[in-house]
């Protein structure tokens, strides 16, 4: 069986600046795969290209065996690939419920959306308590929960999370990361992009290290965690 997501020789450029240079990686069904790297390594660019918000200059993206690198963003969501963007990007002036319903925008089954709304509230009870409240009044951690819940509303087969731990307190980060594991156990495949390598690799089945647009290392999460170079560069150990 082929991988759920396969990226082949992907190259993405902003004008003359090449942000992602011929990278290849894959995500297998049911895995949590981490993409780690410093600022400007090209992680976010990679995710934005996969979800159709950017177009690659060359290379291919295959989702469930079909090429999606020229497919419109809203079609990609409808096919089951959700993207929770960097910086959460919730709609601050809309209520929690409206935010969640927007996550389900591509779906045409109102009854199913209702059920998933309830399961989002089960996953994050705090959202259920404040479903009518404008999302902008939430704390960072709650906004991240909302962003994840919103992405899950499209009932994705593959969920891409872009830096979910950004700017969160350690306690909140723990909560978010355990939710990642919970979602995996429920059968969602996850591509996790993180600067926080420790947290991301601990939960990852497989990991890739991105450095200025290139994949420089790959391996299981456990292997990368103990890898000397990774420890030096990303975990701040000498």
């Amino acid at each position, binding site marked *: 069986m082929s991988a759920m997501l396969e990226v082949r020789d992907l190259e993405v450029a902003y004008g003359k600046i090449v942000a992602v240079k011929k990278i290849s990686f894959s995500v297998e069904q049911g895995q949590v795969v981490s993409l780690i790297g410093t600022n400007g390594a090209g992680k976010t660019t990679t995710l934005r290209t996969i*979800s159709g*918000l950017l177009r690659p200059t060359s290379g291919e993206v295959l989702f469930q065996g079909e090429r999606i690198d020229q497919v*419109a*963003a*809203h079609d*990609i*969501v*409808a096919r089951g690939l959700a*993207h929770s*963007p960097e910086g959460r*990007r*919730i*709609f*601050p*002036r*809309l209520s929690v419920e*409206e935010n969640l*319903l*927007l*996550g389900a*925008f*591509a779906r045409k089954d109102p009854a199913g959306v209702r059920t998933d709304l309830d399961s989002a509230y089960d996953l994050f009870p705090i959202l259920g*308590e*404040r479903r009518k*409240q*404008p999302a*902008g*009044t*939430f*704390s960072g*951690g*709650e906004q991240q929960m909302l962003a994840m819940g*919103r992405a899950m509303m*499209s009932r994705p087969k593959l969920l891409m999370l872009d830096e979910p731990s950004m700017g969160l*307190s350690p*306690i909140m980060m723990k909560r978010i990361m355990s939710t990642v594991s919970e979602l995996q156990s429920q059968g969602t495949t996850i591509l996790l992009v993180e600067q926080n390598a420790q947290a991301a690799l601990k939960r990852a089945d497989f990991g890739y290290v991105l450095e200025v647009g290139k994949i420089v290392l790959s391996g299981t999460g456990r292997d990368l965690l103990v890898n000397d170079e990774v420890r030096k560069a990303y975990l701040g150990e000498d």
Partner: protein
Amino acid sequence: MTDVKTPPAEPETAAEPQGKPLAWPLGLAGVVLVIAGSFLSWSYDGQILGDLSINFYPGGLQILAIILALIALVLLLAEKGPLTKLGAWLDVTAGLRALGLTLTLYMLLVLVAISADSDGLINVNPGGYISFAGAALILVSAWLLPLRQLRDMSEARLPAWFEILSIAVLMAAVLFVAAYALGLEDAWSFILCLVFIAAVAAVLFRTGALSWVGHVAQRNRKVLTLSAFLVAFLFPFTQGGSDANMSIATQVLVFAATAMGLNIVVGLAGLLDLGYIAFLGSGAYVAATMSTSAFATIGWKPPFLVVMLIGAGVAATLGLIIGTPTLRVSGDYLAIVTLGFGEIFRFSMFNLDGNNGPNLTNGPNGVPGIPDLEIGGFNFGDVHTVAGIELGRFSNYYFLLLILTAFVILVFSRLNNSRIGRGWVAIREDEKAAEAMGVSTFGLKLLAFAVGAFLAGLAGTIKAHQDGAVSPDQYIFLESAFLLAAIVLGGMGTIAGVLLGATILKLLPEKLRFFSEYRLLLFGLLLVLMMRFRPEGLVASRRRQLEFHEEDEALAVEVEEERLAVEEAK
């Protein structure tokens, strides 16, 4: 907003600072003086301001002053006296201050008006001065009284029948005041009537009663909508067979229906369209060229309902044609491109005169002599008598336009509360995030453009027949700007607000003709003041309010984070 518990209310006794002991009797004396003065003669000249010269027989403007004084009385009694229960809920003093200010302004303007219309202050009779002094007394007393704690009016619950009765009374008052204000012949009376309306509105707003009205309206939305339409429907019957005001009213309705269409594009989808008038124009031109006018250029004369659909269809098609290339740009760029489109439309109509292409529009002459509509044997040009009241030509169009406006409002509210409406709002808020959520941004923006154009086209087909003539100079950029101004003034994305904005912007220039040279100056000033004091528009949608009062939002976040920290500490 947040479910954070506010600290328990302070005991009533502590929250009751005593004002100057003189304040209350002073206010009462003011009320008495205003009323007494109003029963006396205000003006020596009986020819001006609807005759205020007779003792013990108050004219219209004097009755308005008495009404304001009675409101002041109610407020004073709510401060101290039999109505204190009311005073527990309303910020009486703030209301009284607003009333004192506006009533003093009202009386001052009366004096100015008398001296301007007649020959100087000599024509003011003692009654006018007495009422003016009374107004000033109320003003002084209001500033001596202490302000109070405002209670949350969303908690105020009264029996359902009372709420519905309040809506009915409010609507009846709107109808009565509208009929009265429109019936005023001279501009000074009209301005004074506006000050009166502003005074009542200010009192309702400052006391907090308006927020109660808002909550009641939320709870009884259906009743409110129905009664609003009933009032609009009854309006022609208050005109006693005169068609003069109905002519203005039909123009208001065309303008309002068009503004509602633009409200979908600007208010919901957030696309700034500065050439919207072109869609109204294309509908009007379709209806004109297919009419039985001697100057019509198209030989096919289908029934009007078909013409309506064609006109709207042409407008929507134009919307798609202009939208497909231009909706890839956004913000200021889109505004410029649509502005250009509006001008292209006007110049095309100007030039399609047979010299520079096919003769479709007769160029600058346009299509005059468009006959009145006839639908199913009913001729809109005829005068009909219903229940003893003559309904003229404009009343006929008024009813048709009322149906159109209702339809446009229906489309707007259905879209607003639908999945599509949610997509539009998401695009307006954060287009990139919306795209990542699976919202097909381009398709939805195009749809907003097309729906808006369709509705404007519908209105245009009726407008052509009602005006009787169509020419390019009716569809200038300024008209698009006015439509936009109506939306901004009233409140983007709301129904009531845009209707209100459209009414104000269309009605005032008609009634204040002597201001016509300064019309643009005044509107400019009005918009600047709005942006300064109430950027979300007269009627604000919840989201807009958040948008323009970010500091409150920041505050809410702070409160939330504090609460969270406390929780985590446990």
